């Protein structure tokens, strides 16, 4: 900045940090785009699994058990001779479906409950939030174990168990967000138009509260996949022959020599969770106007 003698005030000696909008966009949302790409690729893979897989996921062939990665078996085979690559592709269907469904359903239920509690106030709020607290008290994995034990092991039952422990955090977040918006003057103005409570809540308050909730959803999908995989790993998730990443790690974890059995499903979990985290961070920045301006 060596412009000592510049009397013209419109000269631009101090501009080096100004960036083009493209550079700015890339710097801020680059990672989010990578995250979104990872997720899209995994979803496409899950949908196209029958086309991409080389073998049926359940095809047992003990003659080819525990083969290292090769041209015939890209990611090797497991102790029953099943193709790890094919099982990984089909496993994506279960893991992504379970993770996304649990979080989205939990978010919708929790948001509505928390939103209604905050908006109604008084006894209704007290009742709904104490119920939420009660649900928060259960350690998620223990509860899931209890439900799995009571209702039997299976993908849907595990998801129900997860859902029960999943919604309270959305209810608490939604409640605090709605409480902030409820006292805003634009909400009072909506009342003055003559709107009833449900219309004010759905049309004015929730659209302005949704940002942090969407961020929590995206960050949480990764978490849900890990928990679901964890439950499968413990033997609570899917019924054995079904391919699922956590279950695959669990089945092959003792095979130290045959590292491919547990490593590749583990990497799959890692990439999906990272993808959702990148996307969540990006959405958080994008929804925060202060961060956007900078």
């Amino acid at each position: 900045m060596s412009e000592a003698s510049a009397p013209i005030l419109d000269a631009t000696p101090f501009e080096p940090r100004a960036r083009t909008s493209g550079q700015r966009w890339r710097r801020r949302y680059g990672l989010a785009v990578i995250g979104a790409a990872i997720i899209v690729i995994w979803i496409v893979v899950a949908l196209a699994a029958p086309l991409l897989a080389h073998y049926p996921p359940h095809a047992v062939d003990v003659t080819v058990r525990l083969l290292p990665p090769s041209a015939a078996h890209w990611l090797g085979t497991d102790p029953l001779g099943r193709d790890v690559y094919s099982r990984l592709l089909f496993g994506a269907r279960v893991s992504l479906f379970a993770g996304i469904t649990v979080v989205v359903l939990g978010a919708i239920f929790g948001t509505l409950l928390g939103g209604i509690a905050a908006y109604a106030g008084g006894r209704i709020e007290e009742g709904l939030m104490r119920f939420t607290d009660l649900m928060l008290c259960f350690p998620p994995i223990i509860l899931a174990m209890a439900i799995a034990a009571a209702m039997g092991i299976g993908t849907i039952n595990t998801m129900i168990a997860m859902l029960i422990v999943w919604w309270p955090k959305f209810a608490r977040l939604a409640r605090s967000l709605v409480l902030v918006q409820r006292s805003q003057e634009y909400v009072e103005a909506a009342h003055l138009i003559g709107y009833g409570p449900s219309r004010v809540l759905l049309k004015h308050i929730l659209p302005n509260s949704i940002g942090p909730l969407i961020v929590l959803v995206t960050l949480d999908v990764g978490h849900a996949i890990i928990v679901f995989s964890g439950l499968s790993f413990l033997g609570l998730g899917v019924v054995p022959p079904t391919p699922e990443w956590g279950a695959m790690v669990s089945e092959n974890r003792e095979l130290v020599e045959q590292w491919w059995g547990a490593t590749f499903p583990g990497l799959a979990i890692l990439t999906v969770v990272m993808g959702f985290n990148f996307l969540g961070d990006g959405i958080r920045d994008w929804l925060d106007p202060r961060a956007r301006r900078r």
Partner: protein
Amino acid sequence: MPAAAKEPVQPILEVRDLRTHFDTDAGVVRAVDGVSFHVMPGETLGLVGESGSGKSVTALSIMRLLQDQSRIAGGSILFCGRDIVTMDAEQIRALRGDQMAMVFQDPMTSLNPVLRIARQLVETMVIHGRRDRNSALGHAVQLLGRMGITAPERAVDSYPHQFSGGMRQRVMLAMGFSNEPALLLADEPTTALDVTIQAQILDLLRELNTDFGAAVILISHDLGVIANVCSRVVVMYAGEVVEEGPTEALLSDPKHPYTWALLNAVPRLDRYIPGQRRLTTIEGMPPDSHQWPRGCRFAARCPFRVEACTEHPELLPVGPTRHSRCWVTQTGQSLPKPALPLVAPAAVKKVPAADREVMLEIKGLIKHFPVPKQNFFAPREAVHAVDGVDLIVRKGETVGLVGESGCGKSTLARLIVRIHEPDAGLIKFTGHDITHASAAEMRPLRRRIQMIFQDPYASLNPRMMVRDILAEPIRFHGLTDDEAGTQRRVEELLGLVGLSSTTAAKYPHEFSGGQRQRISIARALAVTPDLIVADEPISSLDVNIQAQIINLLIDLQERLHLTYLFIAHDLAVVRYISDRVVVLYLGKVMEIAPAEALFDRPLHPYTRSLISAVPIPDAAIERMRQRIHLQGEPPSALNPPSGCRFRTRCPMAAARCAAEEPVLHEYRPDHWAACHFTERV
């Protein structure tokens, strides 16, 4: 001023050609662009300008408290001969809080909420090695006492949340003066406070300046505050100093059109002209800070611009002690007084008040808000927000509602528009009893009562386009036949509040505060209401924008025959706009009278002290004025005093005031007051 002037005196602070820039994605913002001024030891300097003029950034540059994206790009700041700009972090830390101190605008956030007052005060003194812990504690108690805090021994052991805003500002001042600094920067220290508390703090600031001999830089947008405290003023506009001079001369004979505009945009309590229904405003908005104009930065808005203004003027002397950055006044000529058309009072005003139709009638209205119990066995407590208010608003008039924060004026507004449910009493709107009207019963009446809100940043849904914000009430009430009609009506509404129809497709964040307030007004007008309740609609705006909005409200009233209930804490504005005024204190009406009678011959001691606490932007008048100082703070609305609510602060209180509550009585025609001793006022 302290008589410590020994010749020759060096300035304690000298700012030379200061340039502070912000790096943003859209380029560099030259927030402070070549500012120079000086402060003599013990001097009180006022720094004036609207938001975005660079006055706060100048103060932060002096304290070197700038945020990450901002940097000092040029110039020097000499404090006692040493350049602050080139100091390293260690040196500046030694200076801050020791020889230089700062008091911030918001007393609610400037103290650490988890530390006791004592610890925060003692830390300031100990960290600079001025005192050891024990003597520092003693000094802290002494300082708090000096700042007018009762029972300072107890106060030091309190936490900040136990204090009101005014009290916290006293603690901040105590902290500022704890090391007897040579310079105190006060950034809008009274803006967040009520007038009576503001008067106390300003008095204190003046006394401290005299007692401690510290120079004070007072940053304010309020010329009245500046006139009250400062001996010299620097006016800033668009990152530059545009005028500088002694307060009295500058305020009585401004030499820069911007100062002129600032002065004339404020309605004045002492200069009320009957029949004058408009304020002087300047057009447009401050220039874009990313690219200041090449010529005079004020030229685009200046009513006096000449050809020379395309060239950037320098800050040049005009007279022995004054400087101005203006080509027009370079010859030393004064700027003319604004010529405003005097409008004959509108026809509706001629009808005797009592003959006009009553639009809104309120009787004995009560609203208590229960607070959570301290513990299970504690008695149930409630904030007595509105505690028996009687009020009548007639068709076509403007009723002003004034009072300090916490007096219940906003609650009253929300009771009238039925956002809150009253506990007891009666609200009658054009004959309909709406006290406990259900949502369905209210729906047709919603069209006739609307509200304008205080905060233009919170009153518009950020996720809706202006078009939808305005169309929403029209659609809901089915006011137009088809969608095309709705869009036409939206454009008509925008035109009515002075916005172009191209703004319909924008979102609220794309507008300035004043424009948003216009949108808010347009939304209220969308349903063609009869009564508009305006809850402090101008208090968060710059003075020039305030004047524009006041003019707009008066225009609209004349064109659309509106009735206003106008809530404000600014008495000069209330006097200017209102036909009748209601004074509220702790949920009760103290006085109701026509505006003229209330301000010229107030009956209630509270009204008198409120009026006398308003600072007037004229240094000569400020010196001459007799003030009635209110002691202390308003009592808690949880447990209001017995008898007269005002007796705890009243200079005339007697035994009778505690025993017997005065009733609102008509002492003169249409002039009501609730006081036992009105004849003594």
